[in-house]
């Protein structure tokens, strides 16, 4: 069976500026992918290229095994069978909810159409709103209507362009989980574009991190966090600190916090000066530890405190501790490192 979506070395250019640079990835049927990156990284341009709104300068895009985009040849969006959900929902204010959802349904009888609309509305828990108008619904409800409207014509792929940015934060995560359930139940293949990693983690199976038009890593959320392939991904996903060290032998690094053992994600040469990525959850608070560090800053996060600790050489380390352990800034606390995977990058020469 062909992949639902294949993007092969796709590049998008605006004038002479390359905004998407040879990006390749694939999505199987029913999988939810995510393009994650800071604003201006080219994620939206790539999504628009998949939808058919932007031509490709290089490479090609295959939908369901059919080539829909290649340089000089772009199949019109209305012939692609894609569904789109935008940040502003783009519901038609002059149509009621039923007509909005049925907008893209064609070649069916009225009764059939109504039935499809009813079942879709039931899916998102909005039965009974058929005759209402978009402005009578709340933001979250409008978002759901926009989602099922895009799903109504049963597109090959659903494209979500920052679909939750227009909503408040609490609603966002709840809705992201809901949307994931719906997409999974209906076995919809989808791509989400966002700059919010929590949203990406909540919704997507596979996440691609983009920066400056290039795809840095295409992986699961867990791997992005624990096995980042480069510094950009390591910094962009989650929090963390880099502490300097030297590789003493295979699977061992000497640092200011002692020797670290573990499975190396990327094997550096013995003797090479490196920097080790330490996530806040790699640092364990232990009073009797040999390593006592000074607290520079602390942030209360409810269940946990996020402490910023300073090493002798000034390097800062983040440490997540249960909030029962309430220490004041300036105090020394004992810590121990606990790493499954060691992520080491060649040390940058400070200039």
């Amino acid at each position, binding site marked *: 069976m062909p992949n639902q979506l294949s993007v092969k070395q796709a590049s998008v250019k605006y004038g002479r500026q390359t905004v998407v640079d040879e990006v390749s990835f694939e999505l199987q049927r029913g999988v939810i992918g995510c393009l994650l990156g800071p604003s201006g990284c080219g994620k939206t341009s790539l999504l628009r290229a998949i*939808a*058919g*709104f932007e031509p490709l300068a290089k490479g090609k895009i295959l939908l369901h095994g059919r080539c829909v985009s290649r340089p000089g040849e772009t199949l*019109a*969006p*209305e*012939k*692609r*069978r*894609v*569904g*789109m959900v*935008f940040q*502003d929902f*783009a519901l*038609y*204010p*002059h149509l009621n909810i039923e007509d909005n959802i049925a*907008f*893209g349904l*064609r070649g069916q009888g009225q009764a059939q159409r109504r039935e499809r609309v009813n079942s879709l509305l039931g899916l998102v828990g909005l039965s009974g709103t058929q005759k209402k*108008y978009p*402005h009578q619904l709340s933001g979250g409800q409008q978002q759901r209507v*926009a989602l099922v*409207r*895009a799903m*109504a*014509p049963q*597109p090959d792929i659903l*494209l979500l362009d920052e679909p939750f940015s227009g909503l408040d934060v609490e609603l966002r995560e709840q809705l992201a989980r809901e949307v994931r359930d719906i997409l999974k139940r209906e076995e919809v293949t989808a791509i989400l574009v966002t700059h919010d990693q929590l949203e990406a983690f909540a919704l997507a199976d596979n996440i691609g991190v983009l920066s400056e038009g290039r795809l840095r890593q295409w992986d699961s959320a867990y791997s992005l966090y624990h096995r980042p392939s480069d510094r950009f991904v390591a910094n962009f996903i989650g929090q963390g600190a880099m502490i300097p060290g030297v590789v003493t032998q295979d699977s061992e690094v000497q640092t200011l916090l002692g020797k670290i053992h573990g499975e190396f994600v990327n094997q550096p040469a013995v003797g090479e000066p490196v920097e080790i990525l330490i996530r806040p959850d790699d640092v364990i608070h232990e009073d009797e530890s040999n390593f006592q560090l000074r607290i520079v800053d602390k942030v209360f996060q409810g269940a946990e405190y996020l402490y910023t600790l300073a090493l002798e050489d000034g390097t800062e380390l983040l440490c997540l501790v249960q909030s029962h352990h309430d220490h004041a800034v300036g105090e020394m606390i004992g810590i121990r490192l606990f790493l499954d995977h060691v992520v080491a990058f060649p040390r940058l020469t400070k200039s």
Partner: protein
Amino acid sequence: MIPFAAFDNALDDWMRVQFGWSTGLLLSGTLVALIFAYLVRFLAVSLQTVEAGLGKIRPTMDEVALSMGVGSREIIHRVHMPMLKGSLMTALLLVFVDVLKELPATLILRPFNYNTLAVRAYELASDERLADASYASLAIVSVGILPVILLSRSITRSRRAKPT
């Protein structure tokens, strides 16, 4: 006016030389000049209204429709026209009422024996035939009140529809 007059004279000269037949003042002596003047004068009024209507149609609305397999021609009559209908009608009404009571440009540019209500009211009033002038004046006032009624009605309707 100068280009209009120049064109009229040139055409008239040429026709007279070629066919021995005078066309008269084809543009400046007819309604064309007047309509052109109205166009220039009231474009701003209608443009503002229509622009406000166009502003409500966001580009994403077109893109959503396209992605659902609805072609651009269909988008015009299923999305653009219904959404613009209100503001187009408002613009039409505003311009209609404005043209109805426009006086100075009409006085200068109208063809001979062509009277609008405003011109008629002005002529009769300047002849001190005030009673006769009143018919035209009242007609203008009663038509001019139309947009006020319609506007206030649509404002109350939109207030009721959108609880804040």
